[in-house]
């Protein structure tokens, strides 16, 4: 298996379209909440390449369910798409699904952009505002690199960053987290006086 990257909205659509077709062929249908680089590409918010599609949740009606592990039919279909396009076996993965444990930004589902991919797949791409929340959290939690680059590309306003900072502290209220958060906000020209106690 080669290591082919997902580098455009068209590629993202082609892969998810293929996944939708494979699911429909087997009489399956899923709705997925997707975040990360592929969601940013799909919405035209960034233009960097990524290796995978991060599944935040399986959407069941109004509920967002853990995507870990991916349902068998979904992972089988993903494996076929990986074979057909020469992708790594884990191109569709539930990496960020643990974010569900401590809650998503309020209104996440309503803001998400829904797109259908044939009869078998619907995807809720995290909105720009929610991506700012998730990317700020990832930058602080995991370090700069691609997350900070993405956050910069999203050009957040001060209000958006402060809302995101407030939400991210519900996931990690530690002093250490706050210290790093302060320095990231400073990078965007916001002093820590704006952060709540």
């Amino acid at each position, binding site marked *: *298996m*080669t290591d*082919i990257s997902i580098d455009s909205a068209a590629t993202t659509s*082609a892969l998810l*379209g*293929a996944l939708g*077709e*494979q699911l429909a*062929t087997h009489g399956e249908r899923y709705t997925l909440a997707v975040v990360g680089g592929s969601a940013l590409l799909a919405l035209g918010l960034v233009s960097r390449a990524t290796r995978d599609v991060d599944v935040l949740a399986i959407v069941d009606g109004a509920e967002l369910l853990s995507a870990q592990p991916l349902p068998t039919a979904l992972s089988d279909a993903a494996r*076929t798409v990986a*074979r*057909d*396009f*020469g992708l790594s076996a884990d191109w569709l993965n539930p990496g960020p699904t643990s974010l569900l444990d401590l809650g998503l930004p309020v209104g996440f589902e309503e803001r998400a952009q829904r797109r259908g991919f044939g009869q078998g797949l619907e995807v809720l791409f995290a909105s720009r505002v929610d991506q700012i929340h998730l990317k700020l959290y990832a930058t602080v939690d995991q370090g700069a690199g691609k997350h900070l680059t993405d956050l910069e590309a999203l050009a957040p306003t001060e209000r958006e960053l402060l809302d995101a900072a407030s939400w991210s502290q519900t996931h990690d209220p530690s002093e250490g987290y706050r210290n790093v958060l302060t320095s990231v906000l400073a990078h965007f020209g916001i002093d820590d006086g704006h952060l709540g106690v």
Partner: protein
Amino acid sequence: MDISAFSRRLSQRLVEFTWDEWAQMGLLATPHRQSPWAQDPEALIVFTLEVARAEPRLFDELLDWMLVNEALLSVRRLRAMCVDETDRSLLAAALAWLSRERPQARLGNGAKATPPATVHRLFHSVIHVSEPDEAFASAGWLRPTLSPSHKSQPPDPAAPINLAFRLRQILGVGIRAEVVRILLTVQAPWVNAQTLARSTGYAKRNVHDALAGLSAAGVVSAFTVGSEQRYAADRPAWEALLGSKPDELPVHRDWPQLLGVLRRILRWSEQPDLASMSDYLRASQARDLLEATSSDLAFVGIAAPSSTSPDGSWRDLEEVCERLLTAIGAAHAPVPQ
């Protein structure tokens, strides 16, 4: 990718190949070439039952040929050549028809099967069926009543393609004739029992027993290398018995695998819903097909290519198909010697 053009072209080439093969084996037709190989009758019959659904006259003449030459055929091998339920169902129809036309036929269908719930049209062309053939209907196939043409002849035992029949006349219809056919024609100094089992369609244990008998009779030599038992035929002795000049025995082809894979590709390409599929899904299913047949392809020496794009999968299937057609002399290239 134009699936209907691919399917049509493949079907035409396979029909032409099949006519040419049978024309050299006693079916009423004019052969357009002399095949350099020894044919496998049962593999070709099961293959023809599918291919000739696009050529009703070939289908009907095959049944007539089977009626005339049924004593030279093995029903066990016919069943062993089937790769799926469609093969088994077409064969059941043919055997039911033979039983009706000749109640004492060796190739009778055995126990009565439960009538199928659905009946499919046998031929691809639209044929008005005012009087369905009951033997075919009992196996789930709709076609007009078939009466034998009585035009078929026994195969010419001197023709290279008919070596299998000649050996069956000498050794009887059974495993020994098949083992000797492979040993005499294969382009290798020796063969092991596992390869012979795949080539003949018999179980490895039965092949072992037959080889032990042939070896005891001194017409096949056996030798052990490591833990592997290897076998070879005394070709000069067999050439003398068969009246062949040195090195003029026909060549070998792995017919069960070659014709089995081609049949599966043809059947896949003729699925009605394939035309309405997206290019991607069609290519993905082409990849599924290549994976499902990879063991047989490897056995006949064709490595299934593995592209990493949907377009590549389709090209891979076309390439494999062309190599298979070349191996059976049905490509545009000259017949391989």
